[in-house]
């Protein structure tokens, strides 16, 4: 596998003292301005405390800065970012990593809808469950391939209109043999790949995807991502690696090619 996805690139330990920003009562514009200012000053580690729904945190930051978030960040966390490592110690809301280009977002609990919306590169790791339309329209180009790994399970329309990239759904928390509740997975999908650990309901699968046998290349890819996930959250990856995975891939590159032009 030549493409650069499975290798986690942990940031080098920060060389500057961590800076703490108290976000209580702060508007997102002021908070983001403060973040950008600290990054410009060369600060490599920032902790934001008292976060309560401030949107767009870390948007467009293009530096390998480590940002730790205490509280619930608002929608579109890390949108358009390229390089930071953002760690959310609790839950996150909708649209994390919207159109992100590079870097890592780690969420220790659950995340909402449209995680990784139109994501172009980088990695999102969610320890818990995620909402609707996760990975919608993620895409890849040449060697740049975005990755989303979900520890729990996903609600409906996972990978909707997915055009590229890799998603892994581990199903931690599902009972043995319990299928993922996710319906309409891969609706409109025309690129990329989704791996789901355990059983997948085919009754309500998206019309544009099929279940494809795992090849050694897939096993290798999933192993790397699961090890990375395990290392991130302090989980033993071995039982996850030895588990059964279902691979979902698009049936055609152009599912709607004949929709408007006959």
């Amino acid at each position: 596998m030549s493409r650069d996805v499975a290798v986690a690139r942990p940031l080098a330990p920060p060389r500057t003292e961590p800076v703490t920003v108290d976000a209580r009562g702060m508007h997102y514009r002021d908070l983001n301005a403060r973040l950008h200012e600290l990054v410009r000053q060369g600060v490599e580690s920032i902790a934001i405390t008292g976060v309560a729904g401030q949107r767009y945190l870390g948007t467009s930051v293009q530096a390998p800065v480590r940002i730790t978030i205490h509280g619930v960040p608002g929608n579109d966390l890390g949108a358009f970012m390229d390089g930071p490592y953002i760690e959310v110690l609790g839950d996150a809301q909708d649209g994390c990593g919207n159109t992100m280009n590079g870097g890592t977002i780690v969420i220790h609990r659950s995340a909402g809808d449209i995680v990784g919306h139109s994501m172009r590169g980088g990695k999102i790791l969610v320890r818990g469950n995620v909402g609707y339309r996760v990975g919608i329209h993620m895409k890849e180009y040449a060697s740049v391939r975005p990755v989303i790994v979900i520890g729990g399970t996903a609600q409906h329309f996972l990978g909707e209109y997915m055009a590229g990239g890799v998603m892994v759904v581990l199903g931690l928390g599902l009972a043995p043999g319990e299928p993922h509740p996710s319906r309409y997975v891969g609706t409109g999908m025309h690129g990329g790949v989704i791996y789901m650990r355990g059983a997948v309901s085919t009754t309500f699968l998206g019309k544009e995807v099929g279940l494809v046998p795992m090849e050694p290349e897939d096993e290798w890819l999933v192993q790397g991502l699961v090890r990375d996930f395990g290392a991130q959250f302090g989980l033993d990856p071995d039982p996850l690696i030895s588990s059964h995975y279902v691979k979902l891939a698009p049936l055609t590159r152009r599912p709607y090619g004949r929709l408007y032009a006959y």
Partner: protein
Amino acid sequence: MSWAACENRYHDDKVFDACGLFGFIDTRGERHDGTAIATAIGCMAERGNGLGAGYAAYGLYPEFHEHYAFHVMCQSDQARSALDDYLRRHFAVVHDEPIPHRTVPGILDPPILWRYFLFPLSTQMVGRSEEDYIVHQVMTINTRLEGSLVVSSGKDMGIFKGVGHPDQIAEFYRIDEYGAYLWTAHNRFPTNTPGWWGGAHPFGLLDWSVVHNGEISSYGINRRYVEMYGYRCTMRTDTEVFAYAADLLMRRHALSPEIAAAVMASPLWNELEHMAPHQQALYRALRQTYGQLLMNGPFAIILARSGEMMGLADRIRLRPLVAAIKGDLLYVSSELSAVHLVEPRVDHVWMPQGGEPVIGRLGTRPSQSNAAGASTAMVSQEVSRV
């Protein structure tokens, strides 16, 4: 001068974004002042643009709990005098007063705000039930009395709303001075319809109230359907149709909230085909009977009446909704951050699926299983392990 001419400070009629919703019920019936609800909806300031905000409160008027509380908006003294005259001819008015409010920077040109505590005169009801009489009179006032609107008309509840940001509207109406066991709140970003005092959420009729994020793409057919039953849409926006549909389905047709949710956000046809036969029969019958009350398009709502609150998102959840429980309190919100801001240590949080109602009832301790109504688990699924 029309209502619209003076109310929309931006003088546009179409802008784009989302709205914010928040609601909670204390199932023990303990009353909370309006501070928490204002803090929670204020947390989602980004979801609105100052063209509408409002609050609904239940358990609001213990001293008048046997009487209907009419909150009214009037454009002029003449309009209020005509309304006053009308109300005294059709009801026994027990008490009336201006709705207390503060002067708040940024709240411009409020209408005259008054409340009446009243009950119907039996001689006027001519065979109608008390509730039907109230509905009829509210519709009559809202369509025929120029310059006057009844914005809420239930017992022991009230709606406080207007053009402004949620913190301004809370301050304006002094909601911190009221106590209620159930509060809902709205932060408006009008999309397809004007921002004006009557068009702010919540919308109410009898003790129903509804706050809504999204749009009802099927509004035309929904409106025609409720109009067949005597409801009149007068607020120049789609949301009020939810309140009238709720009144029709749950009061007049005595359906449960779970069934009403299955009407308004019914399962998709292909899901229906995989249900057990008796469930298929039920859901088909609902579609056949109430197909015109299917609310199509993206929405999340919080619907409330005395003793009960229901959160519901459209069947493919095109608008966000999260639910949380802390002890005897059930929360429903557009965003989790708002819940955490007022209750940092919730017992349980979840994201209800589209079409799956979240219901809180007075006297029933909330849990996810008794808050979630008709579950999607009843569908038989084929499972594949390649």
